């Protein structure tokens, strides 16, 4: 008899419940629908298991006897191929020629890796942020890599047991400033986190970057808390005006406006504040904390700027929304007290280092310089986003007196 041209695999003594199914599935996948595959085996239950499996998969099966041994003949059924008919393409892992993901990520792509082939009929995931212009930044991938490389360990990056002894009034000022920083960082963690859960994972780089941004803020909350309580004190005062200012960040109508108010204006001002603390804080622990956290915050500002530059490049009239957001926030906060006296005084004291009139004069002058630096920074960033000089000046002045 002429040898059969039907492909044959021998699973030897490997049971179908020991991995032989993998060999059979792979061999069968190479056959066309209606094509045959012969299987030989020696494990005790292989024929019975093959029969049960073929029944469940819709592959017709029969057994012959060849050289005294049973040999299975499987006909490939039509169903396995059906699963991948009309499957959805989801772009490519690295994005288009400019590294950009799709314009609009479809709900049916779900959680699949960008570039994966998704079975038709996969469940829809309704991510509110699924259009590229609403969240993308050309540098998101690069900023994510920088953020990953720049993570630091609070336990080792800061010399917690550094030797210093502050007068009680100065230590109390440091505690008050830390208290203020913590509530601001809680906002800086939660506002992006609220949007993070709404982002279609197709926009992988933004998702990853914001996840690290949340981790940054979690770390900041930790180190500020640790410094506040380092000498046995509880955190100090939190004002209604301060919280009202932060509350408006939660009310921002979309991701871009939230990013504008929080990152571009708020965290931008915070970078100035942290630089001020690095230069003026009375103890080495606070100075180290300020240096490390300022570096993280600068990256958050960079993402915010890059996102808004991208959005304005594809949607120039979005600028009016940004202008409007500042004005609405200003109106909302017009009846609140703004920066609390305790924080302002604490910053002065902290920079003064002691209570003598000469030192206080020095501290006061440093805080005034800080406020000028913050305003200049905001104006510069607004100008980069296309606001003309007078407009940038006016809008910068409307920014919350609470800094963030």
């Amino acid at each position, binding site marked *: 008899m002429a040898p059969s041209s039907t492909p044959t695999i021998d699973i030897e003594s490997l049971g179908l*419940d*020991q991995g032989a199914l993998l060999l059979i599935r792979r061999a069968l996948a190479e056959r066309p629908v209606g094509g045959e595959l012969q299987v030989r085996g020696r494990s005790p*239950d292989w024929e*019975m*298991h093959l029969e*049960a499996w073929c029944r*469940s998969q*819709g592959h017709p099966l029969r057994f012959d006897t060849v050289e005294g041994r049973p040999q299975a003949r499987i006909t490939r059924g039509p*169903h396995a191929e059906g699963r991948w008919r009309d499957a959805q393409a989801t772009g490519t892992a690295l994005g288009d020629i400019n590294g950009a993901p799709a314009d609009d990520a479809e709900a049916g792509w779900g959680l699949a890796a960008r570039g994966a082939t998704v079975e038709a*009929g996969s469940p829809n995931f309704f991510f509110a942020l699924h259009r590229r212009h609403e969240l993308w930044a050309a540098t998101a991938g690069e900023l994510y890599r920088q953020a990953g490389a720049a993570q630091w360990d609070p336990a080792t990056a800061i010399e917690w047991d550094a030797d210093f002894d502050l007068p009680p009034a100065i230590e109390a000022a440091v505690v008050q400033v830390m208290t203020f920083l913590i509530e601001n960082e809680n906002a800086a963690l939660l506002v992006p986190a609220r949007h993070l859960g709404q982002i279609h994972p197709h926009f992988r780089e933004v998702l990853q970057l914001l996840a690290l941004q949340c981790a940054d803020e979690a770390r900041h909350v930790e180190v500020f808390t640790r410094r506040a309580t380092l000498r046995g004190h509880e955190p100090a005062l939190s004002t209604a005006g301060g919280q009202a200012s932060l509350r408006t960040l939660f009310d921002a109508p979309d991701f871009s406006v939230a990013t504008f108010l929080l990152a571009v204006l708020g965290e931008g001002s915070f970078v100035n504040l942290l630089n001020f603390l690095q230069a003026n804080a009375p103890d080495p622990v606070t100075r180290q904390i300020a240096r490390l956290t300022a570096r993280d915050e600068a990256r958050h500002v960079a993402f915010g700027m890059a996102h808004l530059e991208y959005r304005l490049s594809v949607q120039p009239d979005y600028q009016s929304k940004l202008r409007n957001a500042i004005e609405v926030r200003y109106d909302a906060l017009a009846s609140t007290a703004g920066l609390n006296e305790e924080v302002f005084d604490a910053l002065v004291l902290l920079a003064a280092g002691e209570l003598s009139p000469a030192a206080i004069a020095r501290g006061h002058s440093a805080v005034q310089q800080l406020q000028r630096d913050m305003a200049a920074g905001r104006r510069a960033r607004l100008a980069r986003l296309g606001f003309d000089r007078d407009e940038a000046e006016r809008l910068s002045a409307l920014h919350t007196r609470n800094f963030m």
Partner: protein
Amino acid sequence: MSEPTLIMGAVAYAPKVVTIWEGFKAFFAKNGLPFDYVLYSNYERQVEAQFDGTLHLAWNSPLAWVRADRIARSRGQQVQAVAMRDTDCDLRSVVVVRADNPVQTLQDLRGKTVGMGALDSPQATLIPLDHLRTEGLLKPRDFKLRYFDVLGGKHGDHIGGERDAALALMAGEIDACCLIDGNHLAFGLDGTLPSGSTRVIARTGAYDHCNFTTSPGAPAELIERFVALLMAMRWDDAQVRPLLELEGLREWRAGRTSGYALLERAVDDENFYSRDGAILNPDYRY
């Protein structure tokens, strides 16, 4: 007057049953067939509802088919198996022992304890009992029978009884257990019966499983459209595929009644139902 609605009964043996029939209902509605379903907690009440005008048809276990057929015949009526799954055809059950058990053949089970599924499970109890009987082994004369009775009235649709028996086998509580052949593979793959830890000492003859059973006097035109729509369901169709996967089939086939002979015999030999479909087993709870 609005078009009559085809009413089908199904047994809620697991929460997925709601997902399945809601999906089918939407599929039938989209294709112009007014369809609704009624869920029962057991097959006995479902079969009875096929004879009081509540249901036009029912998605029946093989045992429910046997009962419906008996009740119909005793009344001079007729029920029909109009469709079934491809996976309902030509199943077999197996008798399994631990690999280290000296038992080699069914005859060696004399005096031993055999674990079976629910009292009303065709695949894990009634058909294996029939097989042992044809080999000359009768309970309780020749072997001790331990039921793993999960969810009575659901005719073994719930796999739990077979799994419990398999676990008891591995724990050394019983000498043999009875499973549907596909579950022996599935339990091997999921580690319930680690590969190589058991030995199959017998396989029953082939038998068929579920079918759509029409009730006497069911509206023929609606039944015809129902069956035509089932046959038009394609695994390729992404909207339909999840339902077929949940229900465990690749394609629907025309119903046949040639695969219920083993179960018919077991039902008589075990005194489960009378010839007119009355429930005889006094221990049966549902």
